[in-house]
């Protein structure tokens, strides 16, 4: 951690869904339109060298690199006063909910957040994009030094966090399954139809859940939406609310439901009236579809779709319990994968910390090498000047070049060994100047 200490102390302060109730998070949340201004303000707080703000619906976190005196108190007064002054919140209201991580623990927390291990829904993919957005904003307002700058701590740290998150995604199955009912329904539809592009969704009945499921299916590529409801005006209202330039919508009169339902690849029912679709209806529907598969998502209680329909070849019926069961299975998988992801994060934290620990030794060694090389070049130039009357042949020049390089390397060797001993894990970080 010595490199961070030289360039300041890494400090992370925040609240999230586990430490603060929603009313506190709401008051702390910084909308994207104000993020640049807030980041700039935080970066100008006394003692703050670099700053980044991550604000999502489940967390608000301030990641900073600060001078040592500025963080003498816990939580640091500067950051608390930023929260208080910028958001007009009394410190006493916030303080009980705030967590604070420093140095290595701050690195670990950042890696966990970016990898979606600290999210309310573990494995959700949005958080990485939100961290990247905060990073971009911080760079734009100059709150983070660019990667090339010697004193930059946050830029390499965040880039490392992104690659750790990518590693977690590719090496584990943490984000491979859906855990909400609507997304489980969409995932199942993809297992049946592959791409949902061009598919038709029929909503039978009205309800929040069916709207949500339809929206998910549209997001996945479904292009036609049909609505059928006992009250036709209500059906038209739903169709209007879901219509976009890319989505064709239509209304099927409820009394014509069985004659026209074959137009749909996916049928979402939520009437709650019970037995809207019986096996005979499904057989007729399949016949009209020439046995092309049809997916019934029955989120009504009592059920709208007779369970026997699931036995017909080409018909797939999932009711609320089935969807919840799949969601629970997926959640269990995510939990198992999260354990594997935690191991990856721990290894990456250790590796990053080691790299930081070695940084001063590497920098010192590089400086030593540069100085020695400068002296060698000076001496070579001086010798060449002295021998200007009798210039050396190319072979002689090469011999002198090799001799001086060898001498420099041997003279540096003992100092290099001393540096190696002071470095915690010098391994491959420090090598002889000749590359050995």
């Amino acid at each position, binding site marked *: 951690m010595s490199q961070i200490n030289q360039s300041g102390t890494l400090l992370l302060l925040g609240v999230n869904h586990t430490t603060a109730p929603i009313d506190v998070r709401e008051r702390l949340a910084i909308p994207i339109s104000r993020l640049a201004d807030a980041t700039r303000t935080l970066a100008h707080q006394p003692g703050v060298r670099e700053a980044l703000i991550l604000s999502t619906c489940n967390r608000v976190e301030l990641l900073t690199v600060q001078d040592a005196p500025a963080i003498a108190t816990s939580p640091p007064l500067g950051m608390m006063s930023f929260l208080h002054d910028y958001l007009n919140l009394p410190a006493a209201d916030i303080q009980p909910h705030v967590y604070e991580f420093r140095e290595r623990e701050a690195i670990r927390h950042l890696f966990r957040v970016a990898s979606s291990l600290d999210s309310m829904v573990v494995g959700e993919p949005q958080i990485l994009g939100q961290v990247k957005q905060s990073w971009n904003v911080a760079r734009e307002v100059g709150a983070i030094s660019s990667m090339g700058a010697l004193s930059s701590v946050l830029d390499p740290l965040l880039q490392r966090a992104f690659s750790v998150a990518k590693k977690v995604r590719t090496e584990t199955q943490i984000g491979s399954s859906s855990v909400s009912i609507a997304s489980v329904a969409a*995932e199942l539809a993809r297992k049946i139809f592959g791409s949902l592009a061009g598919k038709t969704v029929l909503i039978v009945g009205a309800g929040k859940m069916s709207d949500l499921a339809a929206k998910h299916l549209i997001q996945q590529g479904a292009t036609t939406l049909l609505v059928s409801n006992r009250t036709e005006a209500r059906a038209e209202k739903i169709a209007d609310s879901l219509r976009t330039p890319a989505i064709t919508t239509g209304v099927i009169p409820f009394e014509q439901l069985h004659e026209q339902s074959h137009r749909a690849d996916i049928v979402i029912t939520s009437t709650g009236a019970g037995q809207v679709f019986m096996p005979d209806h499904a057989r007729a529907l399949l016949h009209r579809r020439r046995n092309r598969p049809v997916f019934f998502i029955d989120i009504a209680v009592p059920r709208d779709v007779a369970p026997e329909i699931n036995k017909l070849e080409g018909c797939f019926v999932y009711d609320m319990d089935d969807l919840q069961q*799949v969601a629970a299975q997926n959640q269990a998988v995510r939990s198992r994968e999260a354990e594997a992801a935690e191991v990856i994060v721990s290894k990456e934290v250790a590796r990053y910390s080691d790299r930081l620990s070695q940084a001063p030794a590497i920098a010192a060694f590089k400086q030593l090498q540069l100085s020695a090389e400068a002296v060698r070049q000076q001496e070579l130039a001086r010798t060449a000047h002295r021998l200007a009357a009798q210039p050396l042949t190319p072979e002689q020049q090469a011999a002198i070049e090799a001799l001086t390089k060898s001498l420099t390397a041997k003279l540096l060797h003992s100092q290099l060994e001393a540096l190696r001993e002071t470095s915690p894990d010098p391994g491959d970080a420090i090598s002889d100047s000749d590359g050995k």
Partner: protein
Amino acid sequence: MSLLWLRVAVLLYGIAALAVLPAALYNRPRWRHVAVPAALAGAFFHFVSIVEMLYAAHRALPVDTHETLSMLALLLAAAFLLLTAKYRTVAFGIFLLPVVVLLTIVPAFRPGHETLAYPAIRTGWLLLHVALLLAAYAALFLSLIASLLYLIQERRLKQKLASPRRSWLPPLETTDQIALKALLFGLPCMTAGLLIGSVVALQTIGPTFFADPKVLLSLAMWVAYMLMIFIRQHSGLRGRRAVYLSSFVFLVVLAVWSANALSVVHRFKAP
């Protein structure tokens, strides 16, 4: 030298067949990066081996079962690579690659040294006849595997076992498309292959070749193949019944293959 390339190909196919299991069943991308390049390299060496073998034997025709099976294996490996490229799924490799290994392992380690019985029939048309029919067989085998995968995925979905851990199976509609496209590809291959074979046999042997058991069975196979496509296209046959139908036609194909033992027309190797 051709034997060495074939053995290298068998080794690479073996690696691919093993690597495809974790790649498909557990969705491990690293194993996928082993399986696909290994299969690709295997197919390359396999192709080199066949070309070199035919060139060295001064003929353009596989004359015994080993050589023919080896060509069929190459077509199946090519089918796996095509499916992987087009549909981004390695699931077919679970079935195709072990078959490819089995079909190549015998010619690689117990090669025959056959020569053509009738030098007069050294013709590119016969090679085309064999290649087209092998392509049709490969297409039918692929269609059968696709129908089986459809059936497995359908059962899983019906039993509500759609856990992401076992999401290695391609979507139903994808497997259905692959099954149908494979059949539609196989039909012209089989038709052209049989026509070319008939014309060559008519010129070489005369009309008596129609009495050959293999020729008669081949015609029955063509009719069964046509019927299967007609039924699938017109009734939208999928799932269990599609598997039964594909299996039946596949059995007919095996019968046609076995009829080599009774056939007089299809003996190309010198005694």
